[in-house]
């Protein structure tokens, strides 16, 4: 990572339908290397409450925020609006954009976003915060150093409690558990292996919520002839589960096995007051690393761990292939757009 020295960049955020958006905003508000210039959310009072919480200015519309001379923008809107906001930000002349995942609801939108940013020399970054888990970084370092020999297989899970709100409205989210969850582990696998996904098989279901969006996804992903992986993207944790879900990877190689449970750094808390058991997490805040790398890119530096728009597209390829496969009940090749 190289660091460019300039004055503190001005960063804006839009919009706030997202639980992750608040994590980002809080980290940004505390970061000494940036000036949190303001937020915008033309929907109801969502922008005002975040502005109040983070003590920053709330712009009445996204356009006014984008025209206020920002250096960088973080897009945390509903996925369906990513394209509109990323293109508007690129046209407004910001230096870099950090887009929440998944990149878009369609490969066509994703490609258009990447192209729009490239055309204007704007750096498009993806919010894949798992890349900033110290345990994941250590795993990647061990794989890269050959500690488990040649990697043969990766078994992944990214379970969760079923979310609410727009996440389960496919007209805003683009899909259910498969789209929401596939992109994160698909990105991690690719980043660990340095290989592209070539084929996907997926079985999907709705057996937890019985709605018209999928809450269950069992994917098999091949990385060429040599490596296979499976990924469970299911929203299969009950609502009284002690935490939000998990990210686990079992990396099997010729020299041994690495087992990662990314969020195991937690306490067990048995609350009489709340009649609840929870696992408060004390591990590192992955958003801190993500925001720090993004600010470095805004300032003209390079951050090799920061995922790009292209990385976001590659992850989206896998999720879209999963939907095609589930429809055909057959493995399908990954289309690269």
């Amino acid at each position, binding site marked *: 990572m190289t660091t460019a020295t300039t004055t503190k960049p001005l960063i804006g955020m839009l919009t706030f339908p997202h639980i992750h958006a608040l994590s980002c905003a809080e980290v940004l508000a505390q970061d000494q290397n940036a000036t949190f210039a303001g937020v915008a959310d033309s929907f109801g009072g969502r922008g005002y409450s975040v502005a109040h919480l983070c003590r920053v200015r709330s712009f009445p519309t996204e356009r006014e925020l984008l025209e206020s001379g920002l250096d960088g923008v973080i897009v945390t809107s509903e996925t369906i609006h990513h394209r509109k906001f990323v293109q508007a930000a690129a046209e407004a002349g910001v230096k870099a954009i950090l887009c929440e995942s998944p990149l878009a609801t369609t490969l066509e939108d994703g490609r258009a976003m990447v192209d729009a940013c490239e055309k204007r020399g704007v750096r498009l970054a993806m919010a894949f915060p798992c890349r900033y888990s110290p345990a994941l970084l250590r795993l990647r370092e061990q794989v890269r150093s050959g500690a488990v020999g040649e990697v043969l*297989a990766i078994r992944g899970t990214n379970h969760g409690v079923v979310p609410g709100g727009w996440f389960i409205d496919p007209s805003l989210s683009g899909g259910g558990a498969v789209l929401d969850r596939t992109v994160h582990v698909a990105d991690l696998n690719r980043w660990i292996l340095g290989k592209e996904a070539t084929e996907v098989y997926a*079985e999907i*279901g709705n057996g937890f919520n019985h709605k018209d969006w999928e809450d269950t996804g069992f994917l098999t992903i*091949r990385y060429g002839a040599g490596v*296979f992986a499976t990924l469970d993207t*299911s929203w299969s944790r009950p609502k009284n589960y002690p935490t939000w879900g998990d990210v686990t990877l079992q990396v099997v190689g010729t020299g041994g096995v690495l087992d990662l449970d990314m969020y195991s750094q937690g306490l067990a808390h048995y609350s009489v007051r709340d009649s609840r058991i929870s696992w408060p997490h004390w591990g590192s805040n992955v958003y801190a690393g993500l925001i720090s790398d993004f600010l470095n890119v805004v300032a003209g530096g390079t951050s090799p761990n920061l995922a790009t728009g292209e990385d976001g597209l590659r992850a989206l390829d896998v999720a879209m292939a999963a939907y095609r496969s589930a429809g055909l*009940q057959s493995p399908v090749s990954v289309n690269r757009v």
Partner: protein
Amino acid sequence: MSYRVALIGAGTMGGVHATQWSTIREADVVGVLDPRGEASRALGPHYSDWESLLSQAKPDIVDICVPTPFHREYVERAAAAGMAIFVEKPLARTMADCDAIVELVTRTGVPFMAGHVLRYFPEYLSTKRLVDDGAVGTPAAVRTSRMAGFPHQGIDDWYADPVKSGGVVLDMIIHDFDWLLWTFGPVSRVFACGLYGNAKYVGELDYALVTLRFASGALGHVTGSWAHPGGFRTTLEVAGDGGLIEHDSARTAPLTASLRSNEGGAGGVAVPESPMAMGEDPYFLEIQAFVKALDAGEQPPVTVHDARNAARVALAALESIETGKVVSLS
């Protein structure tokens, strides 16, 4: 009534079964058939050919613990002699052999039970009971895993030959397949990836990830590993629209020994144990269930059809690994 038991095979499973037979009051091991005299004699009277075993030991139960490809042959011999048959899993190496055994057992009506012992492991039995009671609502997503180092303890290292053993999929996670079929009903589609058939890793490594679609609509995922040098571990997870059951053998061992006397010797590693009270050992329980059924004149609980169906899923997984395609089961 007293049973005269002939043990076919004095290997690992033969030894386990002999121990259990010795605790069953109404049964005696009257003969052990195995080319290895010393290993046989440790378990009972040694025989090196079937005819002598039959004429001299006069068994009425045959307990088949030989390598998988020989199961059919001994089932045929035992059925022809009208004996009750207990056969270790998997039922056979091929569907042709499985179907021949099903046909024979059905036609002759000999008492028959397959050694799908997982049904008698308390964590799996408890989970099955909870699921049957509706503890997770309607099951939607089920995951099991069975992870161990590579087995080299078989006679002539037969586990290492995938043509004989079928690797981790047919030899080990068939346990999971039987339990899954028993608990969640029939499987309609199988897709799998694994190292089976990959010449580079024969005899050294095996690992498979199997995805199942049940006829009920539920999804299943089974991990089978002979690539884990760290010792044996199983995990189990059943998620439904009304709850979740989780189990991890690494987190439930009630006793762990970390002994200074092991330092340098056995690697100084902590050795976990999960013992059960006398009479609750799963291998005892399955043999006991077999004997009780014989006493009652009933067919024993794990039927030849159950064993055939579990083998069908495992062989479909191997087919999927080899072809890269989905295998539909009707």
